[in-house]
């Protein structure tokens, strides 16, 4: 009879390392206030586009969030400025063969309005969307699409138009998309993990992060789909949190001089590939390592075959996610180098829990200075919890280790790891640090 092999419990050092990643991940999440503000802006803009006198009055069929917001993977682009992006799709009542320039221009005019109107100075026309940038740095991208009634539900056509510029000709085309289909597919596929959720909740409470939002009031109208509720952080699947960390790393790398002007691997490409990672990893850092290695495998395959990396929307294969990235072999090789760097750092961190200053330096390099010290704080809070709960003690070297308990045979086994240690590790007797006050 084959007995199910249960993985050994996580060791104190594994938990401490994961806590460092969790603390960073928690810091990257939108606060309930930011989420609520985003929702208000979304509904305001959706209504504004359709206002009386707008070029798109009575022509917007449906409005719904897309991109990272729709799969709960949005992150603060800048922790210090608390800014982030928000993608919205507007289904417009036009034919799929409409002229791309006219569609983008119509939306641009609809949002920008007349001089002095609400969004006039905040609106920018892009090749596929119109971006509204708020005073706090938050950007909202509205992408007009035409529904393709011959395709799966909510499959559509997007419009691309970039006017000619010196040295570059005009770009004008349409492309099949299905952002709704992808978001639904992604959210259905990514599993949650109850043990992971418990660890997230524990650390969130220790860090005194503001309580997660629940049941935020929605002001959706008939044709405007509600923003996905800001789920409690602990309900976010580890795969999504790993994806958020990968996006943060990608953004950080693309601020380097050697990446300047290079297009980033799109979030939707990373999200789509994240579905095929396998696993699940036992910890958030293992999830991130699995994701990193999966992305590396895919890139190496493409490079080895002498072609550009291609990823398609699993819910609507005509929708090619990689149509603009990688634009060249150089672009995919650059991302390959980035991923190799990430892999090396993750391996280093997982090999041996480093001196906190080293851990801080690695986190600063991977995810930015602004979130690096909270990683150490998370690690320390986990050490404290494990000690207080009697799970961890110290080896003769002074290193943190799982507490060992005696067995009938007199041998010792670890309470938190499968491998028997060389020396019994006892739990640490309860005590409180104290001290006097320096008077000089």
């Amino acid at each position: 009879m084959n007995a199910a092999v249960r993985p050994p419990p996580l060791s104190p050092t594994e938990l401490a390392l994961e806590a460092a990643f969790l603390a960073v991940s928690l810091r990257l999440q939108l606060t309930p206030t930011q989420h609520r503000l985003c929702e208000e802006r979304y509904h305001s803009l959706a209504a504004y586009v359709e206002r009386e006198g707008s070029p798109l009055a009575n022509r917007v069929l449906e409005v719904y969030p897309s991109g990272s917001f729709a799969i709960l993977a949005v992150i603060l682009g800048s922790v210090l400025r608390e800014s982030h992006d928000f993608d919205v799709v507007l289904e417009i009542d036009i034919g799929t063969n409409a002229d791309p320039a006219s569609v983008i221009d119509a939306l641009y005019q609809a949002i920008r309005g007349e001089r002095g109107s609400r969004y006039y100075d905040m609106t920018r026309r892009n090749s596929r969307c119109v971006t509204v940038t708020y005073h706090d740095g938050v950007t909202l991208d509205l992408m007009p699409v035409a529904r393709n009634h011959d395709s799966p539900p909510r499959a559509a056509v997007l419009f691309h138009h970039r006017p000619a510029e010196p040295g570059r000709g005009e770009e004008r085309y349409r492309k099949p998309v299905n952002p709704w289909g992808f978001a639904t597919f992604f959210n259905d596929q990514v599993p949650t993990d109850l043990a992971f959720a418990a660890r997230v909740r524990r650390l969130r409470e220790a860090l005194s992060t503001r309580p997660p939002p629940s049941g935020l009031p929605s002001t959706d109208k008939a044709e405007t789909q509600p923003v996905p509720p800001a789920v409690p952080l602990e309900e976010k699947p580890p795969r999504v949190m790993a994806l958020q960390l990968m996006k943060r790393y990608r953004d950080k790398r693309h601020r380097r001089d050697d990446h300047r002007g290079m297009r980033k691997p799109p979030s939707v490409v990373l999200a789509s590939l994240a579905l095929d990672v396998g696993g699940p990893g036992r910890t958030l850092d293992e999830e991130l390592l699995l994701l990193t290695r999966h992305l590396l495998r895919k890139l190496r395959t493409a490079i080895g075959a002498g072609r550009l990396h291609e990823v398609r929307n699993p819910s609507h294969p005509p929708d090619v996610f990689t149509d603009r990235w990688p634009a060249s072999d150089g672009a995919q090789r650059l991302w390959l180098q980035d991923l190799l760097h990430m892999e090396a750092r993750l391996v280093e961190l997982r090999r041996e829990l480093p001196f906190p200053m080293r851990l801080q330096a690695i986190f600063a390099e991977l995810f930015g200075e602004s979130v690096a010290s909270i990683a150490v704080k998370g690690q320390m809070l986990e050490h404290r919890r494990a000690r207080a709960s009697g799970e961890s003690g110290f080896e003769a070297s002074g290193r943190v280790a799982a507490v060992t308990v005696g067995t009938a045979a007199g041998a010792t086994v670890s309470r938190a790891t499968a491998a028997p240690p060389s020396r019994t590790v006892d739990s640490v007797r309860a005590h409180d640090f104290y001290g006097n006050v320096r008077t000089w």
Partner: protein
Amino acid sequence: MIPDIERQIAAMRRDWPAWEVVTRVGECATWRGPLCPTTITYEVEIRYRIPLAIENGTVYTTQPRVTVEALAPHFLSPVAIELHLYWPAREDSSPPTLCLFDPHAHPVQWSVEDLLAETTLPWTCEWLLYFEGWLVTRSWEGGGRHPTPSRAA
């Protein structure tokens, strides 16, 4: 029952074999040894004297003295006030010692009946771990408390 210095030494040798007794005078001993909570190894010294039966000392006066000389420069930082240390008087050139338990706590956290190997050493490991975190965050995450001025031992 109060363990004598031989028993303390034996327990230290059993649980912390890398540690050595560097001085031994009567019921007083000094140990030195390495502790490595993560990847940095610290040379730590512990001095301890078994109090005489006629002494009426408190745990504050009888507790082992733990010093980590290499860390002394960090303790001079203005923000080091949060660290859990016993500071010598200004005229005393000896380094601060680690403060590992609350001498006023009830129930008692440490007494002369305890083995250093089972209390002082693991508590020192823990102190060093949180100290390493403090170097980054400037926040002591190991808990504990500082005395009110009137109770400053």
